[in-house]
């Protein structure tokens, strides 16, 4: 099992440390999300990549480098939760924060039970996202 680069850092208690080596990946089929979120993550200090589908991410070369995944739930083809299961199956342990446009508490409960690190309803503000990412990485 490969340990992502971000876990090499003993702790992220010091948020001011340079995170530019940490890769945050956004997977969402909505173009506006793929445009706006990576900029925000860059402002947070992360390196970032965006993919339009779960399949695109899986066939990419940055799975192992990813230390945090921001994942849309509803997507054509493989859905967010399905991608999460697939990553688990492949033995990739990485914190996943789900984002979704549908107000469905059932889905939220379900994915959190499956071990998601975070869950945000769209629209969310930048502070909430940051807080979720922090929690996710510190828990890892």
């Amino acid at each position, binding site marked *: 099992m490969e340990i992502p680069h971000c876990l090499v850092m003993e702790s992220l208690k010091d948020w001011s440390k340079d995170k530019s080596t940490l890769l945050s990946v956004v997977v969402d089929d909505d173009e*506006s999300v793929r445009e706006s979120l990576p900029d*925000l993550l860059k402002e947070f200090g992360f390196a970032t990549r965006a993919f339009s589908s779960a399949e695109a991410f899986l066939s990419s070369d940055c799975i192992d480098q990813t230390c945090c995944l921001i994942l849309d739930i509803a997507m054509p083809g493989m859905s967010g939760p399905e991608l999460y299961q697939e990553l688990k199956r492949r033995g990739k342990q990485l914190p996943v924060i789900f984002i979704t446009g549908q107000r469905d508490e059932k889905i939220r409960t379900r994915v959190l039970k499956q071990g998601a690190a975070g869950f945000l309803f769209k629209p969310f503000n930048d502070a909430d996202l940051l807080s979720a990412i922090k929690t996710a990485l510190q828990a890892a």
Partner: protein
Amino acid sequence: MKEQLQDPDREIKRLQRCINDLVSLLGLPAIWSGNEPSQIVEMLLDALLNMLDLEFVCARLNDPATAAPVEILRVSDSYKLRVSPQDIGVMVSNWLTPDGEMSLPTATGQFAENTSMFPVPLGVHGEMGMIVVGSQRADFPTQTESLLLSVAANQASIGLREAALLHEQKRIAHELDRRVVERTAELAATNEELRKEVAERKLAEASLSQAHAQAVRSEEKWRSVFENSAVGVALADLNGRFIATNPVFQTMVGYTDDELRQLTFLDITHEENIEQNRSLVRDLLDGKRQQFQIEKRYRRKNGQPVWARNNVSILPGTDRESRFLMALSEDITQRKLSEEALARARSELAKVTSITSLGVLTASIAHEVNQPLSGIITNAGTCLRMLSADPPNIDGARETVRRTIRDGNRASDVITRLRTLYSKKEPSPEAMDLNEATREVTALSLTEIQRSGAILRYELAEDLPPVIGDRIQLQQVILNLLRNAADAMSTIDNGPRELLIRTEREEPNRVRLSVKDSGVGLTPQAAERIFQAFYTTKTDGMGIGLSVSRSIVEAHQGHLWATPNDGPGSTFSFAIPCNPEGLAGGEPFVNRDPSTDAA
């Protein structure tokens, strides 16, 4: 005479002896009393034989019953010659007339050389017969002997007559007795028969009265059933005239029993039901059916209609009675009114909800607007951070602002489109391109489709002719089908989620649109049920979508149906004519009123 005077002693002795003999003879009848004729005669013959010292004496008695006389013969022991009654009979026949009477009262005959025979008639004319005496003495019979013979014959006659009389008496008495016995037996038999008859009659009466009592009880029971039945019961003859009705029926139709007896059931049946009712009764009487049910209206006496559900059958006849019609009649006016009210309410609801599906509208807006909104907030947050950075990232901020404006416009477009789709405009038909309408709608429900994780494909026919119809209404239908397809696939996670929209031309002048999903699919039973109003599998849906969609399609003179796929899922299709009858582009489209459809 001479010899008599010569010897007076001898004469006296002879006369004495004669008187003794006479006395004896005279005493004979007393002895004879009760004896049979033959006994009498035998006794007499014996007496004569001795008295007169005859050689033989033969009696020939006429028997009225037989032609041949009874012959009794006595012969003296000392007589040498053989003599038989037949011999005598031969001689006697010379003396008889053809009638059997003595022709010569003083006839004599010669039996044998030295034996002469003399007949002595019995009865005044010899009708009883005769005695024939035979003697060898030359001087036979002397005076006294003749006298004795006469007296003997007389006595014999008397005795025989008495015997005959006695016999007759006996016979009569016997006959009487016999008749009495017979009569008594007859009477006894008759008596016995009468007694039996009486007993039988009594028995029959008893069982009759028992049966009668039973019948009365049974009749009471059935009458009670009839009178107290909770449904109306009416009996009519084969012409339909009422014979008997129970109180429930009378109350239902508002007539008394007497009034109903003047009427036939068709007289009080609502005009609109008469023909059907008449036809069913005809079938019943012809034997084409054993019974029938009919929901019909009666006209009450006051003219008001009342709905009834009738079960009608024939009561078979007996020898004495012909068949009856019997109707069990239940008042269903309440139910009918409720049904009609429900139908009206449904159509109202459908009308209302076909124009505004508030819940759906809200959800649409929420879904469609959420994405751009989300983008706006993210971009704005990013913008602030960029501007707060040291140094501020002006280019980056500018980019975020640009995206914000674009997303804002996107949201606005969605609102406008939704508003247009759900506006309360009057339906107006126009020539429209179904493909274009489809694309508009799918753009609107894209997120919902994406929520289901489905892949959307189009197969829109290029040569699709324009269709005259109400754009908004048809888009509603397409939207409904797309939503349902998305929902059907939302729970599928072990297979592909494919949504296919296809339009095609149907000969001769129709277009068809199909929405095919790979979702949970339909059972054949569900395939029709889902089109019923209020049917839904959604816990929060109203389930009016398909029912209303179908009525919209049918208002366009098309039809809407669902079929299961060969693979997973189902396909919903509607087909409409390009030029619905009676419509031209621009004319107001008169919407079919669902409430009149329900009648």
